[in-house]
């Protein structure tokens, strides 16, 4: 059961990372990155590392996404 859960979380992380790399809009990438952080939080918790899970939950969902959003606001994207 736990193996199945871990396997499904790993597969969703794989899908999320491919979506982060290949999405057209960069803000979609940031949102998907937050989902990636959520999945890796669950994974850390299942591998019995709640310390790392706490850090990843705050950093991955809150602070790094703000940093990326500010970077997106301050730059412009050229599509060639």
């Amino acid at each position: 059961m736990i193996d199945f859960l871990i396997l499904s979380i790993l597969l969703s992380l794989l899908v999320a990372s491919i979506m982060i790399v290949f999405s057209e809009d960069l803000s979609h990438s940031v949102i998907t990155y937050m989902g990636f952080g959520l999945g890796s939080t669950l994974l850390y918790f299942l591998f019995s590392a709640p310390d790392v899970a706490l850090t990843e939950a705050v950093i991955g969902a809150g602070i790094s996404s703000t940093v990326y959003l500010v970077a997106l606001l301050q730059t412009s994207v050229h599509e060639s």
Partner: protein
Amino acid sequence: MNLKRTLRVETLLVALLVSVTTLVLMQILLNLHLAGHSLGDEILHINAASTQSANAVTSVVTYFRGLDTLGEVSILFLSIFGVALHMPRGSKNLFSYHNTLLYIGVSILFPLMLLFGVYVILHGHLSPGGGFQGGVIIAGAFLLRFLTYGDHYELKERVVSLSESLSGAGFIVLGLLGLLVGDRIFTQILPLGTLGELLSGGVIELIYIFVGLKVSAEISLLAEHFVKAHNV
């Protein structure tokens, strides 16, 4: 056109490589069975005798590997220093969004998040958490406040820099006291309590209070610099 086609082949190759690596890692992770006597058992054995901390991870981070923690904290300090030099703080908030519901919700949430951060810092040697985690939670509370209140809220820079530098100095002084009293840097200089109480752990709790103050001050300053950046 040609360039685009080669790019697509390359990205497909990268995706294939990533998926194959993930499959291999998954195979390794799901079939991992550590046999016999490992380093973790040894650390758990020493931890019960020398620190009386219920959470063995924090005693590894602060007690057995205190010098590594000092390095991490100084790396964080250097990165904040670089950000503050490169992006001077403007007065205009990039995310100004006025809404009464948001004000009320954040004014309820903000003290709760501060309380939870302080709890995580103080119970670092008993439950999962510690200085880094609690400090980041406190910084998240301040970030929420920056995002909500717009231009009307700013950190007092004197207080933040004073708490940051004082806690960093206290952290190093604790390490040097360990070198002075004991045999190595960051050794145990305080009496140990009983396992599982708030005042057990000895020097671990003090180190974590300093690390929590430092990390919370640094990351909330970083968040303010990012949120209130000048338009480049």
